[in-house]
């Protein structure tokens, strides 16, 4: 078996794909697993113990040659591209897992002729589609982020049915990396007994950066509190941020911009007590080498989705009403300074505690942390990453639905048929119990039972709409397959299609009016837009199955909500 895993976005994304690679290895111990990555992800792929081959994808030269308006260079670009495609083809991969959401990657894979693709692909008629239920979930979850409780690593991992109960990130360090880190510490008079802090000031976008001034204040607090030895890490291009920091806190840190390779950075992080960072690739490296991470989540960063993977990390974010979409505009420059240094110091303490098992008990809301939320990471009983609230607070509607959706997707997305749904209640219950225990009652503008009823009605109504759709699709299928004889079958078929379109519009509207139902509406719509092929019978059958899946999901959600409410009643009454 020859497997290709394609991840041609950024270095951090390659690390986040590493659990998937390990899951593939567990399923196929003898397989040849190759990873196709950009140059910036090459080392990460090379340091994965389950990767047999690294293929470097480079489109930079092609891009420059295409823009050159030079015929010879265009020909060169074409030939080099053709050669690359042929080289991939010659490797005779049996399956490719494409975790890159891009049309270009889908086109490339289609050109290589790999027979099976999971992820972004082109249909036979050249349309951009995604293959795989978890893949569809991945691409639709960004539109309903407030209800997504799953980290990207877990979503990727589920591209195959996971059998690893203790998943983690993979980035192997070598002795020479560690030797370099030791030498670096010695050169800066830092011993292993010192409290070593790394700070990542930069981020891929300005909107994701906590203010440098805050980092500088935090540095002073860390030195005061822990006598910390602080290193500023990042690429050479971020050195200007380091300069700004040094002006605000002279002598507080040692800038290391451009002084380490990625693996040397990993070694440094491995012997550090904590990394304080924005949402960056460095964060993932730290998580991979088990360095506790304190993530300052600002802008449109959603820590649940892209936060540090593994146990013993902490995320802090400013309390917000809505999460919004991943392309949300920056709320305003002041969000980057709203989270103050004392609050992040508290988060650092949590990360340090989380390293040794987690905070003994949750904090009671206090004035210092009044406007922020703190979370620490654990692997939940369902073997996926979870962010547990550090500050005890009431459960919100969003929490309720997020838990429900999490449980539902984990049960449903691997099933081929509704009847395949895993009905093992014990793991689900344990998981839900653990989550619910973190909350202090239910805080909403309507009481819990009433909200439950609202959700139930919404899901039930959606289920009914979906049932209507399933029935229409079934009737369409019967006409197309000849099972039902009709005087004018094509006219009848067109009418059914028209009715289905109207029904889809009803469902869309239902999703708008009942936000709790929106993820289901979106994913069903996405799957219908993703239909491939031209055979009307196949299309009708698939459409029917999509509606049936929606029915199952609605039913599952209602069942899970019942469980949650029951558990909440017990938990909140007891407290």
């Amino acid at each position: 078996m020859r497997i290709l895993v394609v991840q041609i976005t950024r270095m951090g994304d390659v690390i986040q794909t590493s659990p998937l690679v390990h899951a593939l290895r567990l399923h196929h111990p003898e397989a040849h697993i190759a990873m196709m990555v950009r140059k910036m992800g090459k080392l990460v792929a090379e340091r994965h113990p389950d990767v047999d081959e690294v293929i470097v994808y480079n489109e930079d030269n092609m891009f420059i040659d295409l823009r050159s308006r030079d015929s010879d260079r265009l020909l060169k670009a074409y030939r080099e591209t053709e050669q690359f495609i042929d080289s991939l083809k010659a490797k005779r991969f049996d399956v490719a897992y494409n975790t890159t959401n891009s049309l270009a990657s889908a086109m490339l894979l289609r050109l290589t002729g790999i027979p099976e693709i999971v992820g972004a692909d082109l249909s036979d008629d050249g349309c951009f589609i995604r293959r795989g239920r978890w893949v569809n979930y991945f691409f639709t979850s960004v539109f309903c982020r407030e209800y997504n409780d799953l980290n990207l690593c877990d979503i990727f991992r589920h591209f195959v049915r996971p059998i690893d109960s203790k998943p983690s990130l993979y980035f192997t360090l070598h002795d020479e990396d560690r030797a370099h880190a030791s030498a670096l510490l010695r050169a800066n008079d830092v011993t292993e007994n010192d409290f070593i802090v790394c700070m990542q000031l930069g981020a891929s976008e300005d909107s994701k950066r906590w203010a440098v001034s805050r980092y500088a204040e935090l540095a002073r607090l860390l030195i005061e509190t822990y006598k910390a030895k602080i290193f500023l890490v990042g690429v050479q291009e971020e050195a200007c941020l380091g300069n700004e920091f040094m002006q605000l806190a002279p002598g507080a840190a040692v800038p290391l911009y451009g002084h380490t390779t990625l693996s040397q950075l990993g070694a440094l992080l491995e012997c550090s007590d904590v990394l304080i960072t924005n949402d960056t690739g460095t964060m993932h490296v730290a998580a991979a080498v088990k360095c506790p991470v304190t993530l300052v989540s600002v802008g449109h960063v959603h820590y649940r989705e892209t936060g540090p993977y593994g146990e013993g990390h902490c995320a802090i974010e400013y309390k917000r009403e809505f999460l919004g979409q991943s392309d949300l505009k920056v709320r305003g420059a002041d969000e980057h300074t709203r989270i103050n240094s004392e609050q992040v110091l508290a988060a650092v303490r949590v990360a340090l505690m989380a390293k040794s098992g987690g905070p003994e008990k949750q904090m009671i809301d206090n004035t210092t942390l009044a406007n922020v939320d703190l979370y620490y990471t654990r692997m939940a009983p369902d073997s996926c990453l979870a962010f547990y609230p550090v500050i005890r607070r009431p459960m919100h509607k969003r929490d309720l639905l997020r838990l429900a959706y999490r449980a539902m997707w984990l049960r449903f997305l691997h099933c081929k048929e509704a009847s395949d749904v895993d009905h093992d209640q014990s793991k689900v219950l344990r998981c839900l119990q653990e989550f619910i225990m973190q909350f202090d009652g239910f805080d909403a503008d309507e009481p819990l039972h009433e909200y439950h009823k609202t959700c139930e009605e919404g899901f039930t109504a959606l289920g009914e709409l979906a049932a209507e759709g399933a029935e229409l699709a079934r009737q369409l299928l019967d006409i197309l397959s000849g099972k039902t004889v009709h005087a004018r079958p094509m006219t009848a078929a067109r009418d059914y299609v028209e009715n289905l379109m109207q029904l889809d519009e009803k469902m869309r509207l239902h999703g708008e009016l009942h936000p709790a139902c929106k993820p289901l509406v979106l994913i069903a719509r996405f799957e219908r837009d993703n239909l491939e092929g031209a055979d009307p019978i196949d299309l009708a059958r698939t459409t029917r199955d999509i509606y049936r899946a929606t029915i199952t999901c609605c039913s599952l959600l209602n069942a899970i909500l019942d469980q949650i409410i029951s558990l909440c009643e017990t938990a909140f009454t007891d407290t």
Partner: protein
Amino acid sequence: MKMLEAWRGDPLLNEMLESVEWVEGRKGFPTLRVRGVLLHSQYNPVEEARRFVSGLELSAERPVLLLGVGLGYHVAALREAGYEVACVEPNPAVLRYALERISNTESETDITKVPVATGDPDDLQSDALFQAFAEKMPSLVVHPATAQLYPVYVEKITGILSQLSLTGKRLHIAIVGPMYGGSLPIARYLVRAFEQLGHQVLFVDNCKAWPLYETMSKSIQSKRVGKQLSELASHFLSEWSYARVMEFAPDLCITMAQAPVSNTFTARLRQSGILTAFWYVENWRHFPYWKDIAPLYDAFFHIQPGVFEEQLDVAGCTHHAFIQTGCDPGIHHPVTLTEKEESVYRCDVSFAGAGYTNRIALFKGLTGIDFKIWGVNWVDRDLSRNATIHEGWFDTDTYLKIAAGSKINLNLHSSAHHYGVDPTCDALNPRVFEIAAAGGFQLCDPCIGLEQYFDTETEIPVYRSLDELREKINWYLSHEDERIEAARLAHERAINEHTYIARAQSMLDFILRNHGDKLLKKGLRIQKTVGEVVDSLDTDNTLVTWLKGLPSNVLFTHEALKPYIQSSGFGHTRAEAIFAYMTEVRQFSESLLKDRL
């Protein structure tokens, strides 16, 4: 030019241009001394050569023409660095020593197969091997000692190489036009001419700005405010022109007279390696702004030879050339009038143009003939008694009809200093060529230089006074055969010798001769058509199969091919699918770049 090894024993190498001295080096690597100048380091010429090569900014895709072989150290260093190399050595004796050193040296990077030329540089122009090498547009590297010892030789080889390399290559040329005025149509003709020569042309058309500019100017009473606004508008238009030119990234930018560009426009373009030229199609005596701008351009073209050229030299303009206006046979050609048009345009004598004082003065004396005038500012009571005046602007179509309908087309160059014929006139107007190309018979005033372009007896007869004009009008009206023959001969002359294509090529020849080395150094975008690419490729090729389905004259660039690449994958051939993939990569990357900027 031949392989270095093939020069062994050639009698040419026995010619000692001057004394060349063999100097033993400190570490066993010899060098040569010519006229007191060491060609290489005495200590470590191999290391010196490697350092020299590594400091050059050479394109990896282009071969290198090295001026100055010396003892071959630089040749070897270039070969080591992976470049295809050919050499020219000014001094045959040096070459002889180079062969001697190579023979006695082991483990040398093999440079015996490197093509080398020596001797008279003029012989290189017709040398097939040199031509073939020049065709590859090599980077030119001059050995420092050679540049010092033989500067004239180096300059000559540079000029020859530039011309051979660049002639026939498709250049990117931007032409910046004026908002309004006589040079506007000329700008358009020049654009067409360069396109017909096969170059990629961008016309920076500013005429759309004219209505706003005119409205703005007329709406303000205050001269001071009007001037301020005018300057602001000119600055804006200059920036707009600059932006358009820079996006196009041409090899050459030609600015037309009256184009709204600032004096810094040229400097900014030159910083980006763009050659600049100006075509001053005006009378230098009437519009003196040329003094300020001529020295700023790499090439300054004008339409008045003689005194003006001396003036340009004095003003510090070192590269100027006389390039006359002309005609565009695609636009200026004979037309046939309809019956209705006959009644409008048919006449014995016509004039088309603006009513300058000297013209009104002369034409008032043309009485008793069927005389029609087209143009603006012809308000004169006496004239209107003798001529039918069609006051107003006219377009090119009308102009051709006027030429077709008139038995005699008058041409009289405008003058602000003389009534009637200006005996000092030396700025030929485009009308001379346009009427001839349109097939019209023309009587013209004797503008200095006219005789260089047309035979003033048999093709375009001239008149020097009103009397002479009246006499010739009468004669030619009664001698139809002679009139038709003269028109025919002038027409032939115009379309064969005086087209804008010929003018455009003259401009390019001048620029390549004088500045080709800069283009060579910068490197050209090589642009071939689909047909040319198909011809150059192996026929058994999926790319060729796809390209054969496209129009052969489409340029083989990504921009030009994009309309032919289906965005959907259905029905793609492999080649098209690869292009679709590359297009998607580019579009996505550009969208990311746009977001960041």
